[in-house]
């Protein structure tokens, strides 16, 4: 499982427990884990059930292969529209490999929902709105928005639990429905490689070239020399 998704799942399950304990009024909360991926992604969805999620849903079709973030968001959006009665979409803040962090905002855009990224705490939530706190580079922000909405979370939001034995047994028996392109009523050109605006051509580690210049002399001479160099480079 993508590490950031473990926090999203934990937060979903905690919300359910919060509502079920009656602290937020007695709402019937159901947590559904949705994943687009190859048939093997079923395992990840089962894992999420062992962690307390109610059910899993796999979006899988050859036509979905090679999707970039936009096509992924498009496919997820179709599925979520079909689920229909949803209040909050929680995403991991980014994937472990692609690292773009784009799927969340794109999905929200497609569904016409408010999006709040990098949420570090859900302060208040009821049937109509959610109030969250998020950590920016230099400040905290507290934002309230109406529901439905989408948020993304990182590792500062919670410590994911260890699966339970009953959860694991439930996961073992669980049937994960698979929705394909027909089921989602999504056109081939919207999904997968053909629905993608971007294509990864090559992945490589950039060669870092270090140019080292050692400045010698007394401390005063070194400072003067360094000052001259930096000035020439336009840094100061």
């Amino acid at each position, binding site marked *: 499982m993508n590490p950031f998704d473990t926090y999203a799942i934990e937060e979903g399950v905690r919300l359910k427990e919060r509502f079920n304990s009656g602290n937020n009024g007695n709402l019937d909360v159901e947590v559904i884990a949705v994943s687009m991926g190859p048939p093997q992604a079923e395992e990840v969805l089962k894992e999420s059930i062992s962690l307390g999620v109610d059910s899993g849903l796999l979006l899988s079709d050859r036509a979905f292969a090679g999707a970039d973030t936009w096509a992924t968001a498009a496919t997820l959006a179709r599925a979520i529209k079909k689920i229909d009665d949803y209040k909050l979409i929680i995403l991991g803040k980014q994937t472990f490999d692609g690292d773009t962090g784009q799927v969340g905002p794109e999905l929200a855009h497609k569904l016409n929902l408010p999006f709040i990224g990098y949420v570090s705490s859900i302060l208040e939530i009821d049937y109509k709105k959610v109030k969250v706190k998020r950590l920016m580079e230099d400040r905290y922000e507290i934002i309230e928005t109406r529901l439905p909405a989408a948020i993304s979370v990182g590792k500062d939001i919670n410590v994911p639990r*260890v699966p*339970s*034995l009953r959860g694991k047994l439930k996961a073992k028996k669980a049937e994960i429905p698979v929705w394909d392109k027909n089921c989602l009523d999504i056109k081939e050109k919207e999904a997968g490689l053909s629905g993608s605006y971007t294509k990864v051509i090559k992945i490589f580690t950039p060669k870092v070239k270090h140019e080292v210049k050692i400045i010698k002399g007394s401390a005063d001479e070194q400072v003067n020399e360094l000052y001259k160099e930096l000035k020439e480079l336009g840094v100061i």
Partner: protein
Amino acid sequence: MRYFLTEEQQMIIDICRQIVDERIIPARAELDEKGIFPTEILKEVGKSDLFRLFVPEEYGGMGTGIFEVCIATEELSRGDMGVATSYAASGLGFIPILIYGSEEQKKKYLPQLASGEKLAAFGLTESEAGSDVGGIRTTAKLDGDYYILNGTKQWITNGGEADIYTIFAMTDPGKGARGASTFIVERDTPGFNFGKKEDKLGIRSSATRELIFTDCKIPRENIITREGMGFIIAMKTFDQSRPAVGAQAVGVAQAALEEALNYSKIRKQFGAAISSFQAIQHMLADMATNVEAARALIYQTAKVIDSGEKNIGRLSAMSKLFASDMAMKVTIDAVQILGGYGYMKDYPVERMMRDAKITQIYEGTNQIQRNIIALDLIKRGVL
């Protein structure tokens, strides 16, 4: 080496390993050093359903056998025996309710213990009554609809942390062992207080405390079965719980063996890894063989108990005796293999050696286990 485990049993092991790796190992040195009770870790253990194992499904449990409790205890003990002791002691505390409690008592207490929301403790030992449990002086006097408890229990695991206590007290002091009874006492009952918390050699993250009863009034219906059944309940409870003490011993010994083996491969002396020296190899071989033998005896005992066999006292005592003596030797040898480093707190084996010692003492010392085994041999023959 793995036994023929069912998928569910393997799941139990996987869950325990995740708890050990993610929660226990990063915390254990500090828990030991400062003697901190592992509240958060036990909550996680509870959320993972591990307290539910042995409890029947109708009381919120999972209705497994002692075998499952043993594999869970073994795995947790690989991480920290203080945590494993606190886990197992809650089980020890609720076994009397499980095997002799009334329907009402089971319904009232087992679900919250099975969920791990509450912990239990088992209060038998007193300052003057250790091996000789017939010497307990705590009394319970019937007064209308209540029993009035007076006396002090000593060295009670989970004391002060648990919510539900099964307490052994004399209802008929003149009758000796036949005059004892067992009661369920809830934490906040007036007249029930906690004495000092012990500073111990090992299992330092577990809480060991005095329980003090001063005219402590408990409802009459809190007696387990009837007056005079106390010692039968205690003995039957130990028959069921002792294999789990053996499982603690196997777990801590396994952990020490793993540390010693890994270290022997990286430590170089005289230009070679110490694992290339036959003296070290033979120690490792003996350690591994003994761990495996003890594990086999524990698993066998647990399976026999789970099969419903009635005469389990001898086997249960054997499993605890053999595994705990084994664990003491294996953990001492692990320190020896690590040499001076093994003696330092920077490595975990000195703690494992300190922790292992308790398995030879509690739930009946190993001398008492030998007494049980010998008496049963003489009474029933070799079988």
